[in-house]
């Protein structure tokens, strides 16, 4: 039986291939690294009774059955995909945070400059004052 494959694509990534890496132990278990119970519920005292069943071993060959092998490989691949997507989410989050921080820094800088120019920090009021000045000048 051939091993499963998965591809991911998005506007910034043409194609990312996920495949089973031979000999890696993460493809020979049904208990994934990223597919366990969340830390929050474990800390709350949850006893994990919802584990996936263990792989079934064929008594004749002493090897996992075909379906069990597939389940183990998919568990490992799911870990690969989850880690990849989590990393992408982190990158996206950091980018957003950076933009937010930059715009916040820029706002503070503008405010300081405005105050140094003699404003009182209230944009609306300053605009009104300017409007009045222009009218009087006419």
């Amino acid at each position, binding site marked *: 039986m051939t091993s499963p494959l998965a591809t991911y694509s998005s506007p910034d990534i043409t194609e990312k291939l996920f495949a089973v890496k031979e000999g890696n132990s993460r493809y020979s278990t049904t208990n994934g690294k990223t597919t366990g119970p969340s830390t929050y*519920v474990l800390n709350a005292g949850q006893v994990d009774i919802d584990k996936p069943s263990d792989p079934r071993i064929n008594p004749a060959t002493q090897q996992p059955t075909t379906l069990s092998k597939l389940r183990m490989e998919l568990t490992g691949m799911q870990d690969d995909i989850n880690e990849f997507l989590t990393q992408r989410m982190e990158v996206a989050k950091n980018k957003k945070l950076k933009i937010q921080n930059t715009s916040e820094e820029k706002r503070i800088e503008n405010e300081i400059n405005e105050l140094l120019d003699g404003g009182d920090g209230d944009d609306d009021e300053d605009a009104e004052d300017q409007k009045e000045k222009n009218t009087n000048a006419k």
Partner: protein
Amino acid sequence: MVNLNTVKPRNGRNYYIALGLEGSANKLGVGVIKHPRLVSMSQGDNSHNCDVEILSNIRDTYVTPPGEGFLPRDTARHHRNWVIRIIKQALEKAEIKDPRLDIDVICFTRGPGMGAPLHSVAIAARTCSLIWDVPLVGVNHCVGHIEMGREITKAENPVVLYVSGGNTQVIAYSENRYRIFGETLDVAIGNCLDRFARTLKIPNAPSPGYNIEQLANNCKNKDRLIELPYTVKGMDLSMSGILAYIDSLAKDLFRGNKKNRLIFDRETGEPKITVEDLCYSLQENLFAMLVEITERAMAHVNASQVLIVGGVGSNTRLQEMMGQMCKDRANGRVHATDERFCIDNGVMIAQAGLLQYRMGDYVKDFSETVVTQKFRTDEVYVSWRD
């Protein structure tokens, strides 16, 4: 005229078999039902009287520790890791030897509900459909409750009170839609009870609402209600304020806040109320609100029957209060089912899905199987009723 025999059963049989998969919240349910193909079903609206035979109804609940709710990720994990085992059990109990030949349709909950758990079960449904080459039907969870309730109680055209952890609606049928007459403006009644149970730190097994009902039954001061907000707004109701208020009372009781004169006696400093009193008053208050809007809906559509569905519908006090209201109305009657059918289950999804299938409405493309968290009861075209 409705013809429920539009689609013939597979393999020349004279009955239909449907497999139902439910997993919109913390219950994972798998059920198998059988409908005989009766001549009467092609001669008008008999959708409440299908002579259903329940071959199996297996359920497994994701239970969290006291004081905790269920998170989407962990609930989805529970469903993912149990669904195959539960399907196997259900098929075995129903004595389905070869699903390829014996099952006419696979029905699954398409929404509303929690996204991740819905998704887990939908994937299982798609997989079974592909492996066995059996058609799929995506079912609205609320319509599943209604159709199961109608079939079990044989209520032909009742006003429906749908009360569960995620929904609170008063519904009446009109022109091929289940129309929503009134509903909650914020949290659902089951959610209100569950969250209060979390504050009280009472166990979540078998269900928080059931444990509140038991505490309320043990109340020794049933003649002295604790005053709570009563928030009926036209045909709708609101429960978040009531929850916030009773939560604050419970917290003051546990903290021993003697300044709260509602709870502690001014002279002796002893508590005047107990946890049982709080549970009893909360139930009475919320249920009175439900009875009021249900009675108003009955008056609107001139109905005499009420059908209570959803997990909270198994509360015997709610059934009793609704029964009292119905008794005061001419020919009034309340219909309710027990926990096997009130609480989320696979059989109800099979029942609504099979009705839909028998009208020739089933999935033609897998893009139609995408689950949705928001899926209102009145979005469904009810082709199986006149």
